[in-house]
């Protein structure tokens, strides 16, 4: 089973939940994939031993000017305005290129070659018996999805795979959720938390994933999130109270279930709930 831990709003506690869930299950049957390749944090709490590493590259065009007759077909087919013919020159704007290969296929003179451009890495290893992998996008490179795709290819299907997803609702989130069996949404009971939870629910619905909600810092804020979950029939699987001791443990990189081992049972129970929902 693949469980994606998402939220919409940032800073609601996705990583706390993903890491604690992973640490609560039989360790040789669980794998954690940190899909927040922009700012991955799970490793800070798990201190994994990294055993392997691969670079992730996208292919970008390189124009052989001796062959190019400036016909402009490449610019015509590029949907991202990443290549343009201006005067006697072909200009390339790397930050706009999606690496689709369209320009190369379209060039009637075969004047375009593709060269790999490294956008980040995927690293994998273990935390005791738990399998672990994460990705890192290079600062300044805009596109996380190719790294997330490579990371997901490392999923060990026989295990419970827990994916820690980035905040938001756009491409990196969709890429992380695609192919999962369950979407666990972590929110906080505030107007910001509620607003962004609703958006995350829409994404999970588009992907037809069963959902459950964890309310973090459950005793601050207002009752909007509880009401919304009730109206939408979203099960609230756990409420974690605001507790300065939890915040302090988190700030130093101690996982919730290590600081408060009683939570392990609750996380295991939550996992069974999710499995039941998936079976239905």
């Amino acid at each position, binding site marked *: 089973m693949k469980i994606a831990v998402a939220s919409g*709003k940032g800073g609601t506690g996705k990583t706390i939940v993903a890491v604690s869930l992973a640490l609560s299950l039989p360790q040789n049957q669980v794998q954690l994939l940190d899909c927040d390749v922009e700012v991955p*944090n799970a490793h800070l709490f798990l201190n994994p031993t990294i055993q392997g590493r691969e670079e992730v590259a996208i292919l970008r065009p390189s124009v052989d000017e001796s062959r190019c007759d400036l016909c402009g077909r490449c610019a015509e087919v590029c949907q991202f305005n990443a290549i343009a013919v201006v005067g006697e020159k072909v200009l390339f704007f790397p930050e706009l290129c999606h690496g689709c*290969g369209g320009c190369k296929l*379209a060039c009637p003179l075969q004047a375009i070659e593709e060269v790999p451009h490294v956008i980040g890495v995927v690293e994998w290893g273990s935390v005791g018996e738990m399998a672990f992998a994460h990705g890192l996008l290079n600062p300044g490179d*805009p596109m996380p999805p190719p790294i997330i795709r490579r990371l997901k290819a490392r999923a060990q299907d026989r295990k419970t795979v827990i994916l820690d997803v980035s905040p*938001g*609702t*756009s491409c990196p989130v969709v890429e992380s959720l695609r192919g999962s069996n369950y979407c666990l949404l972590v929110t906080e009971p*505030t107007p910001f938390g509620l607003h962004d939870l609703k958006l995350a629910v829409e994404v999970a619905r588009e992907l037809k994933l069963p959902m459950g909600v964890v309310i973090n810092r459950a005793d601050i*804020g207002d009752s909007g999130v509880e009401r919304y979950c009730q109206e939408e029939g979203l099960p609230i699987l756990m409420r974690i109270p605001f507790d300065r001791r939890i915040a302090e443990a988190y700030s130093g990189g101690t996982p919730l279930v290590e600081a408060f081992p009683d939570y392990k049972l609750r996380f295991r129970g939550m996992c069974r709930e999710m499995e039941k929902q998936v079976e239905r």
Partner: protein
Amino acid sequence: MRELVILSGKGGTGKTTIAASFAHLAERKVMVDADVDAANLELVLSPQVREEREFRGGKLAIIEPALCTAYGRCAEVCRFQAVQEGDDGYLIDPLACEGCAVCYYECPSEAIRLEEPVSGHWFISDTPYGPLVHAQLRPAEENSGKLVTIVKQQARQLALAQGCDLIIVDGPPGIGCPVIATTAGADLALLVTEPTIAGVHDLERALSTIAHFGVPALLCINKYDLNPETSRSIAKDCAARNIPLVGHIPFDVAVTEAMVQGRSVVSYCRGPASQAIERLWRETKRFLDG
């Protein structure tokens, strides 16, 4: 005209809390919410929408089943795993399609057409604190960077037309495409961090990203008293790298209370967080003016 962007790397460190308070404190400015995935500034600035426009972020390929000869060229050329083999012919997963149109150009049976669906909206609103330019990308859509670029352009035009000399941009979390679009063209970035191992780690990645685009940075530590030791180490590290530390905001329940009331914390009460944000604004302004 100066453009201040508020960023953090890590989500939930307090960008919007600070942006909302700056909206209250700064004069003659245009506010922008560049977190187009999950825009929250509108929840605390009481906007009245004056103008609403559609955003079309990119194309979407659609296979016409009647024309598809199941040749399979589309699946061969697609680099985004968006083409799926169906029972009779191929299908495109709209959530995976990046709109590159390669399949459209390559299909030997001309069975693929391109559409440009509405993928979000952007708005110009009036608030008690001046104009706000904001947007909502549809959930599960892409090209948030393009939408960020549009709201920033609109804000600039609006600022010119109304004689405002400052644009304050509430940025998205992370370091990817919407953050890069937010950072491009900014004069100054205020980074908001928290004294946690994750806050420090993500701050580092945010600093590398804005350095990549040559934008100078200021730093503020939110909830600094949750881990004073880590806060001191952040301060020391910043001093060594000549990044001005312009504010320390204490943990204060009034921040959440204000949010529940739909207000900025500085307009809600005069508690410790409000006072700290006022000082933060005065310091930030010195750098904007200087």
